[in-house]
């Protein structure tokens, strides 16, 4: 099975989030980037497991600049065969989906996997957009994926339960927790990643559908009010009278 895994970079979970240029740009100074956890832990690792059981190849792709090569090498160290970087600064979800789809279209993949969202923009947009651009079915937020020949069995959590679907390849699947377990790259993987092929392709022309005008930080929480553990009546009073949430 020929699998394409789309990855994105995101700031390390513990990064301090701040903005520059009158709050119009994410301030990258001192920020450590990682592979977006949903793309890495779930999409990439599941792709590798499928390759290990039924054979095939795993290619990773991202839209980014040369500065993003370290996260591509990280993904290669986990086990992907080769990587592609579309040489552009992603400017919105549609722009990104368009670039990824153009490459996917020319290279006929059986399965396209990506995380359910990134932890920086949390938009859940790119997978569905790619499916539409490639005219493939789209299964979102899947927590299980099994391959049986050219058909897939998938599970997704929905309100009140889990639904099980069947779909034929080629298709696009966005991956959530449950799909696979995180893999830590070993020394051999890290060494091998240095020489695995990374091809850089040029972007196609594309107009953004949306843009971020500015950012702001949420209001600072006021001081935490401490309540005596023996006085829960007071807490209930405060929740009712002061906070007005009950």
């Amino acid at each position, binding site marked *: 099975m020929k699998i394409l895994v789309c990855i994105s970079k995101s700031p390390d979970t513990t990064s301090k989030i701040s903005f520059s240029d009158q709050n119009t740009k994410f301030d990258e100074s001192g920020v450590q980037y990682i592979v977006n956890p949903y793309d890495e832990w779930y999409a990439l690792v599941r792709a590798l497991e499928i390759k290990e059981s039924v054979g095939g190849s795993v290619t990773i792709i991202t839209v980014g600049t040369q500065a993003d090569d370290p996260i591509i090498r990280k993904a290669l160290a986990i086990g992907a065969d080769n990587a592609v970087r579309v040489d552009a600064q992603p400017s919105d979800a549609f722009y990104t989906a368009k670039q990824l789809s153009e490459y996917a279209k020319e290279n006929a993949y059986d399965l396209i996997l990506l995380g359910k969202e990134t932890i920086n923009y949390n938009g859940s947009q790119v997978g569905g957009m790619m499916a539409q651009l490639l005219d493939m079915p*789209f299964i979102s937020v899947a927590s299980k994926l099994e391959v049986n020949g050219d058909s897939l069995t998938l599970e997704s959590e929905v309100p009140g339960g889990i639904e099980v679907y069947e779909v034929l390849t080629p298709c696009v699947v966005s991956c959530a927790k449950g799909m696979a377990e995180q893999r830590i790259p070993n020394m051999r993987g890290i060494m091998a990643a240095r020489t695995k092929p990374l091809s850089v392709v040029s972007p196609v022309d594309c107009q953004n559908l949306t843009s971020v005008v500015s950012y702001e930080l949420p209001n600072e929480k006021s001081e935490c009010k401490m309540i005596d553990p023996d006085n829960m009546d007071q807490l209930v009073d405060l929740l009712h009278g002061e906070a007005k949430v009950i």
Partner: protein
Amino acid sequence: MILVYINTLNGIGKSSYEAVTYAKKMGDSVVVLTNGNEEESNLSSLGDYGAEKVMIHREITSFESGQICDLISKVAEQHGINTIVFSHDHVSKAVAPMLSTRLSAGLVPGAISLPDSNGHIDVNVFSGKAIAKVSINSDKKIISLLPNSIPLEKNETTCVVEDLSLDLCEAKIKLLSKKELEGDIPLPEAELVVSAGRGLKGPENWGMVEDLAKTMGAATACSRPVSDIGWRPHHEHVGQTGIAIRPNLYIAAGISGAIQHLAGVNGSKVIVVINTDPEAPFFKAADYGIIGDAFEVLPKLNESMKKFMAQNN
């Protein structure tokens, strides 16, 4: 005219009424589109919040993202609609981006505000650690509203329900089966949530969490370690890799408040933290804190809550 697409396959929830309220507040007439088997009397309740008409396509009875996208797209074209509103749920996360591409309509996923005077809409980014103002550059616009972001507002309107027949693209995703899970309040919609972590020491101790939740009419949630070791089901896990929620009240017992957990709950309006460790980082994000043992505090809180409920209901 604004078109609101609502998923009614799992019933009509509060988030559906919020989406209609939101569309109505944008100041235009509101028409709802859905699919499935929901009864007419339930559908017409959307009129309480301002919907003039509900169109239902009864042949799509499962979550088939391609067919639902085709349905919305055809209805939008027929009626010359430029603005489509969703509730940000599992259906819109699949369908809205597909529709955005098909209609060349910019999408704002997880909106938490109405468009301001410049048409800019707020969304949470960086897992709730910041807010972005987003502008849509296209004439056609799609907004998917994060549950619990705006208060419901009644707007009694006579609402007609109309069965729709439309030829749609072929279904490519087949629903094989559905496993039901226990718990009656869906976590993303819950206004009140009681959550607990490793501090509870074992799954057998969850009775006091469930008792308090039952008294308050709250949903239950848990931290990641607790769902990873199987004390609680995965769908209760809130945090970075679980689900993000923004209830009015989040009560956390025996959870230290790691940054990954906070990412899933920092949109809560009020946070109450119960922990034996005064240095627990969660207190920094809390509005009310109790330094104490959950095993003693939760039953006491339940008693006080029962008294309050008896007086106020």
